[in-house]
């Protein structure tokens, strides 16, 4: 996607967010149409903005559930992005599925445990997502089918502050997306 198209999408998302915010408040007081965003990428926000955008092209789907494909999680050791153990088989199964379903898209979401600084953990989570991406590509998936995002330590899967919780939070989630790739 080009920079411009990406910006346009964000504008739309923010407009939707603005109208959602208006809707939420409209029940209490009648209001006129939302303010139009200014030119360029500036958006007329509010003293307390809401970033709860409506779902767009990145809406999630349940994805395949047969056998190993039912597992959408790959776990990692502390400070490591090496895929190992059952993670290897899980990634192989998803690679094979993606190779056979060329229109299907996934988003790889990298996560870390809570230890260490937050932005550095964004880097570690990205490294894990890229590790899974490379393994998928090597085993039959195509680049256009895969996007990555790192949430670092910001979205733990489970609460808790011990090794048991940390082990569950050091992960990559393979998230299937609802909207297919356009046919070639």
């Amino acid at each position, binding site marked *: 996607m080009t920079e411009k198209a990406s910006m346009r999408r964000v504008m739309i998302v923010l407009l939707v967010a603005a109208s959602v915010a208006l809707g939420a408040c409209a029940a209490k007081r009648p209001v006129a149409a939302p303010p139009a965003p200014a030119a360029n990428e500036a958006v007329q926000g509010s003293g307390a903005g809401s970033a709860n*955008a409506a779902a767009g092209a990145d809406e999630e789907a349940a994805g395949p559930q047969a056998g190993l494909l039912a597992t959408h999680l790959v776990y990692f050791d502390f400070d490591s992005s090496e895929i190992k153990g059952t993670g290897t088989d899980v990634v192989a199964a998803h690679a094979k599925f993606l190779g056979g379903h060329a229109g299907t898209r996934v988003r790889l979401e990298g996560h870390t445990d809570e230890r260490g600084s937050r932005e550095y953990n964004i880097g570690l989570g990205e490294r894990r*997502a890229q590790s899974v991406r490379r393994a998928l590509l090597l085993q039959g998936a195509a680049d256009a089918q895969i996007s990555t995002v790192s949430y670092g330590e910001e979205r733990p899967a489970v609460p808790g502050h011990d090794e048991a919780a940390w082990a569950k939070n050091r992960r990559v989630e393979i998230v299937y997306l609802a909207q297919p790739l356009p046919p070639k």
Partner: protein
Amino acid sequence: MRPIPASQLMSGRRRLAGALALIVVGLCAAHNARAALQIEITSGVRDPVPIAIVPFARAVAADGGLDVAEVVQHDLEGSGRFRALPRERMPAAPTRAAEIAAAVWKGAGSDYVVVGRVTAIDNGQLAVDFELLNTLTGARLAAQRFVGAASALRNAAHRVSDVIYQKILGVRGAFATRIAYVAVDGSPPAQHYQLIVADADGANQHLILDSRLPLMSPSWSPDGQWLAYVSFETKHSGVYVQLVRSGERRQVSARAGVNGAPEWSPDGRKLALTLGGSGGNPDIYILELTSQELTRLTDDPAIDTEAVWAPDGHSLYFTSDRAGSAQIYRIAAQSGAHPTRITFGGSYNARPRLSPDGSQLAMVTLDNGAYRIAVQDLASGTVRVLSHGRLDESPSFAPNGATLLYSERDGERGALATVSTDGLTGLRLKAPQGEVCEPAWGPFSP
């Protein structure tokens, strides 16, 4: 009631946002109002300065019930360097220095007495007059007036605290400043994120942004008007800048891969950023905000992130694991520069922040298996570990350089904490519910 604009000062600036935006914001913000952070003093100096802050004469109809002397007492005691005389033990209730019998207050154990008055003046404005008296010498050390709208009375009280702190300790106080932080409610995996701005004492909170997806890394512009931050609202990281007063915001980076760690340059014209690109390798860039021109600073297969500017704007400090573990490096703020490693002690040093005078580097360090806040003297290389938690992170200097604000885990919950750079005083700021993290201390107000 509509919340007071977060940036409202005694000068009484007007909001720029349109009336419609105000209606929307007012309703939504009122709905999202949060209870103030609760302060707990965790350590103080052995011999705090004894001071009496006498209740101010009040303009009862106009002052909205705010007890100015109580705010001042709260500020000074929260610094860990003052001990206030309880009101029930005060020998008298003067409101002017001329009415103070110094010997009587000295007898009650107070080295200093603060008196003052809130009076309604023209145009619905309030005047706060205060005087500071040394009971040992009888000298009047300060007599000052702050004028502003009733809604800015709390800010005036913090300014009174700033003057008292400076007159007695010789360091400019930082009570009339603001902090930004992220509040997280709910249990994983269903969490809810809010970016909040509050007074430095945790009171007077204002919601800046609300999201079901993570918000992180708030950074103040040098003039205190803008916040830069990272939002995942599009299910992808993006860097935004937002005018605190009006809420107007702009997306400044939503490139492929990581968009993170925004940090304003001292001249306010550029942001240091971490960008990952589609290949997923985070490096440091400088984004010129007006021209959108992007300059790449580092190009290394390691994770390079968390850049922060030296106060002179000529160089930046950042975290990199290029030598195998996270350490801090310095690099000149120009394309093609080579980084120099700054930290050598231990296996993990990350998230650098510079003191306002540029002499001290605060960071997160791995200390005996715990993540703690440490300060390295850049001239001598000496490192002091200042915090005592297990998962301390995100250090941020007060604009007077005297205190560090950081986040910690207190039991199950994330809280904010402060420690003075001499390590002697500290306090904890806790939300009544949920977690608070990623604090950023704003600049001095004009």
